[in-house]
């Protein structure tokens, strides 16, 4: 029994992988994202430290030594961008993870049990959806900026948590919808008849069938988390200086548009490339999982 299962699972994964890599742009996007991740991970091998100031050497145009030039304090922009990538990618990945986790829990409970639990959870979800998220992020960010409390010192962690807290509603709705459809299926009735507990049915039977749509919505979440984090840092309410982030680099560049307009180019283009790559990966995943999606939608 177990052996059969593993073989089946492998072939499914292999099938999805094969379909995914048929999508040329998605394959390219994977490569681009891999390069970005590696560059950020190994950022400490760059020639300059992102914090090292050199005021006599400021506002250099991009050249052979300073590939992206230097900023108003003479810091090397290339190295700052790579270190900024660490923050953006970390925030993107982990806030997506937590938001999906929370969303799956809420959506699964809501969709599987229905009734008053569903109504209560969906009212809360609606309330969160009506929230103009960025406003709340800014309020929370404003606390962050002035507090010296222990937990708030690590502003990356706090930004991850607040982005996740304000973005779980989309996966929750998606998962709820999938559960509403799947819980009426014969294989669920079969498991109920065999005495399967709710937890078992949710975890073993229904959830594995939701993986595709969850992954696709995860890519959308990650792209928007990266845009949100950078935007928040750009407004001055995200990850706090001196930690370089794409958003805060862009924000300092804004004050220098007359002296050094090129400074505004790099952080933005990095956000843009990352988001494009993630979007194309999402597109590839959607295509790879497509037969399944059509399958559920029809019934």
């Amino acid at each position, binding site marked *: 029994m177990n052996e059969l299962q593993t073989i089946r699972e492998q072939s499914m994964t292999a099938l999805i992988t094969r379909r995914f890599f048929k999508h040329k742009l998605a394959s390219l996007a994977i490569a681009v994202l891999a390069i970005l991740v590696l560059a950020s991970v190994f950022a400490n091998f760059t020639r300059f430290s992102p914090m090292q100031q050199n005021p006599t050497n400021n506002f250099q145009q991009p050249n052979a030594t300073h590939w992206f030039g230097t900023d108003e304090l003479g810091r090397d922009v290339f190295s700052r961008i790579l270190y900024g990538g660490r923050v953006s990618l970390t925030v993107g990945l982990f806030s997506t993870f937590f938001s999906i986790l929370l969303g799956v829990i809420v959506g699964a409970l809501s969709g599987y049990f229905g009734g008053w639990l569903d109504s209560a959870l969906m009212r809360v979800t609606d309330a969160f959806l009506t*929230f103009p998220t960025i*406003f709340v992020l800014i309020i*929370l960010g404003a606390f962050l900026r002035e507090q010296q409390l222990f937990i*708030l010192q690590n502003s990356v962690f706090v930004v991850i948590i607040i982005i996740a807290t304000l973005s779980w509603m989309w996966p929750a709705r998606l998962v709820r919808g999938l559960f509403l459809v799947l819980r009426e299926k014969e294989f669920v009735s079969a498991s109920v008849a065999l005495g399967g507990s709710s937890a078992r049915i949710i975890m073993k039977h229904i959830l594995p069938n939701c993986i595709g749509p969850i992954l696709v919505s995860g890519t959308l979440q990650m792209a928007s988390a990266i845009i949100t984090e*950078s935007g928040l840092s750009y407004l001055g309410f995200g990850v706090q200086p001196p930690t370089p982030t794409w958003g805060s680099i862009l924000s300092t560049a804004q004050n220098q548009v007359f002296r050094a307009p090129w400074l505004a180019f790099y952080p933005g283009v990095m956000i*843009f490339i990352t*988001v494009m790559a993630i*979007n194309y990966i999402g597109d590839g995943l959607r295509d790879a999982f497509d037969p399944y999606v059509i399958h559920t939608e029809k019934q």
Partner: protein
Amino acid sequence: MQTYALRRVLQTIPILFIISILLFLMVRAAPGGPLTAARRNPNISKEQIEAIEEKLGLNDPLPVQYGRWLGGLLQGDLGESIKFRRPVSDMIAERIPNTLILVGASFLVTLLVAVPIGIWSARKPYSFFDYAVTTITFIGQAIPVYWLGLGLIIIFYVTLKNPITDLPLFPVGGMNTRGKEGDILDTLWHLVLPVTALSLGWIAWYSRFLRSSMLDVMHQDYIRTARAKGLTERWVYYKHALQNAILPLVTLIALDLPSLFAGALFVETIFSWPGMGRLFWDAAKGRDYPVLLGVVMITAVLIIVCNILADLAYGWLDPQIKYE
């Protein structure tokens, strides 16, 4: 229809209630307070700070403070700005029209551009035009609004100049040139860059959505029926297909409203547009709680009202839906 509208309005009450509690708790229970800056100021004594706290009621238990704030809210009183010593409702009332001008103009531009693009690219799917549009919309969706805004400033304000006067091509900052307040043409000129920054992403998103919606509809049985009846392809496309394909857009727009206001916040900040977003940003920097709470509450109400309108519009547009 009227009962439905009434019921929808009543349904929003618990939602607004939840929002108000969450917001209030978040702002008040968080560490620090509106007097953080005053505490750091050596010229203000401890006794003075305590007196201010007592006067503002910051020492009362949280439920009491919430009750007082909610009571005021229900009477249209949003409290007084700590920084400007002015009623928050007045400050917001001054800014709302400006935000609505910006959001409304962007919305109009978005629809005027996105709908034709979506229709044309679905007309001949996988044609050169369609591929070009798909690529461009993918790009447009990935450009963050703040970077686009900054880029527009660099291109049209810093770099490009009017060759005759050597002045920047488009103005940046505010709604009017000094001395031209109330001049509509001048305001429109000031609107060009902010509206471009705000609309581009939405144009990309809606034209993509409309394209796939059109393609879905074109596979429906009633399209085949319409063709079988011998209707011209044009009539089938623009009458039967378009009417059905455009419906989901109404729901989508209602869902996207919070994001539209969020985008407006960035654009207002970048272009110094005197709207609610800008007010909010300034208040956040000064931790002016009553203003923060007021703006978020008003924005939430605006969004909910638009949602109800969208639902009602949906019922009006789609005869299949009957409200009881």
